[in-house]
């Protein structure tokens, strides 16, 4: 018990240091690193953290999170667009547009979450993947909202226009909001019930908990968080098209969560950093061109990374690091059974709550 608390505070210390580094980064980092690499890392990290939340606390692996990310973007584009652009061209105030976009995201995740709320595991994964691809075709085919060409020339609110560093702080704020929010939520009665449902849905149902309702609400919360990342994305990008929510990006987001380890919230941002940095800097690595890996073959590298991680450690890089650390501590490298680990973590959480 003692060591568990120690480790927990060590983890918190590391988080505080990371947060300080993120906040101070614009003072020292290069413009490119802050405005391109880190903004994208934080945005994708927030979106991926919603996958991790659903997976770690709800036992649901959702591939529809990039859809929620995209819906928020498309809705903002339709709401703020003015005459001359595509979409509905409502010409609303950008802040009203944010409220509208998030409301639509919540509604969409309520419907989709409820539809899939009676399944788990592999069924949940393929159903949410199907929703994501349907969403891609939806925004492609329904030209009133977007069409395959997408929406362009969408301005962020005037505060952020031409101020990428401010946008960076928005993304950092969203990250803190998502991370702290998810961790706090996991200790509320709702969060505890959700974890109970993850471990034994039949038992929780017989205790009187409404299992589908809890799953649906968890999906709505995750959708909302992914939606906020989508808002930041459209402000940063200024455009969105269906390709950005097609099957490729859908899998990319899952891959980010997998690299980080689908049971560690922190892993989402870590995975996002590896993904974005790899995308930006792979060509600079020495010797990679000699073994036939060029920038154009980035997907091969990412795919191979996923396969290797899954072969070595299904809990991703965080899980691998945790295992090595635990092994060093106990003097030997012992691979703990994942189910056992989840149980341990649940006990730990229960003890600390």
């Amino acid at each position, binding site marked *: 018990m003692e060591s568990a608390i120690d480790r927990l505070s060590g983890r918190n210390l590391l988080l505080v240091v990371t947060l300080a580094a993120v906040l101070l980064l614009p003072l020292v980092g290069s413009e490119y690193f802050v405005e391109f690499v880190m903004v994208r890392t934080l945005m994708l990290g927030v979106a991926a953290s919603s996958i991790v939340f659903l997976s770690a606390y709800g036992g649901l*692996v959702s591939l529809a999170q990039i859809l929620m990310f995209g819906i928020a973007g498309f809705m903002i584009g339709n709401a703020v667009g003015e005459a001359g652009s595509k979409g509905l061209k409502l010409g609303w105030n950008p802040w009203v547009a944010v409220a509208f976009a998030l409301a639509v995201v919540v509604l969409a995740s309520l419907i989709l979450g409820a*539809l*899939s709320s*009676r*399944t788990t*595991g*592999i*069924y949940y*994964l*393929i*159903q949410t*993947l*199907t929703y994501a*691809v*349907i969403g891609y*075709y*939806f925004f*492609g*085919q*329904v030209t009133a909202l977007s069409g395959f060409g997408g929406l362009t020339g969408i301005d962020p609110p005037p505060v952020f226009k031409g101020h990428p560093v401010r946008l960076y702080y928005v993304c950092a704020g969203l990250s803190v909001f998502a991370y702290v929010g998810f961790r706090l939520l996991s200790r509320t*009665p709702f969060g*505890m*019930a959700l974890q*109970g449902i993850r471990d034994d849905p039949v038992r929780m149902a017989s*205790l*009187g*908990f*409404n299992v589908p*309702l809890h799953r649906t609400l968890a999906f709505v919360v995750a959708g909302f968080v992914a939606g906020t990342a989508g808002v930041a994305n459209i402000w940063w990008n200024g455009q969105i098209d269906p390709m950005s929510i*097609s*099957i*490729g990006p859908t*899998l990319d987001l*899952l*891959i980010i969560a*997998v690299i980080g380890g689908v049971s560690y919230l922190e892993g989402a941002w870590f995975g996002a950093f590896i993904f974005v940095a790899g995308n930006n800097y792979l060509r600079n690595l020495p010797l990679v061109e000699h073994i036939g890996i060029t920038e*154009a*073959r*980035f*997907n*091969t590298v*990412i*795919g*191979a*990374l*996923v*396969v290797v991680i*899954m*072969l070595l450690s*299904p809990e991703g890089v965080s899980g691998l690091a945790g295992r090595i650390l635990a092994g060093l501590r106990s003097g030997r490298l012992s691979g703990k059974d994942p189910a056992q680990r989840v149980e341990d973590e649940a006990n730990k959480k*229960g003890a600390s*709550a």
Partner: protein
Amino acid sequence: MGVDSTDVESLGIVVIPPAVRRRLASAVVLVPILLVILWVLFLGEGSPAGTAVTEPGELAVVIFNGLTFAGLLFVVSAGLTLIFGLMRTVNMAHGSLILFSGYIAIDLQQSMVGKKRNIDTNDVGLLDWIVPLLVAAVIVAVFGVLMQQVFLRWNQGEDMRQTLITLGISVILADQMLAHFGGLAKRMVWPGAVTYFFEVMGERYAMTRLFMLAAAVVVGVVLWLWLNRTRMGMIIRAGVDDQTMVRALGINITLVFGITFFVGAFLAGFGGVMAASFAGIAPGADGQWLLHSLVVVIIGGLGSIRGAVAGSLLYGMSLAAAPAYLPKGYAYYAIILTFAVLALVLAVRPHGLFGREE
């Protein structure tokens, strides 16, 4: 743990008695079906095809389109559902196998005909289509078995891990195929002997579509015979029901897994060549055909061959009906109809029409 047990009523949820629920469920299904029939028969005057009462030929064409595309969907998704049924592995690289097979067959057909482009259907004999089909399907099947033996054999039972491994493989395959086969759309050419039109109720109809349906029926019948009339099929059906028991009876289940994966990948390959002939293939077609297969198995129930037939028919029909019977101006919103069908099925049967609760 300090968890308060929450009462269902106190959450404000209305508890519906089972009898009412059942009636509600059947109403949820029957009312939309009735409305669709009414719309197609009498009301859909504004739709491109017109009402079925005044334009029976159009309806016949839609039904033919639906049936023939359902045939293709069945072949494409049967492998996915067969593998899942026995091994609980969702092969996310299924779409990649489909695309891979299509590319191999096209290359092979081009070298058999001796032309790189502008192949006329009259240059293509029946053998110039069937031989590439079989060769490509066997290559893809062997590839599938290799994939299973190297990556999936030793972690059998960890379904999420296996799914993510096959996902990683599909990303690699898509990228490598883009590198080797290029980014342009390619098309397999139907044999000249079946490329003509015939008349049905006053409408011209392509024989190639019926040929596709015939090929699908042959695949379906052979699959049925294999699963229901052979010893291996019997073992597979037993394995679907109770894997541990099959193992305990001294049957080498690892070998059975390998064979099942071979057949599943072969079906993907077969479907891939049909898809390449029917619609052509390009990078991205892997995702598209994976989606088609997933929709079919979600509707029909993952792991059930009967479900794959039902899912293909329902999905194929809705895809064929969308451009004909949706109101004008909305004719290309087929995706909304697809989602409606999917939502309707999931609302009533969360694991699909023939799916089993875990």
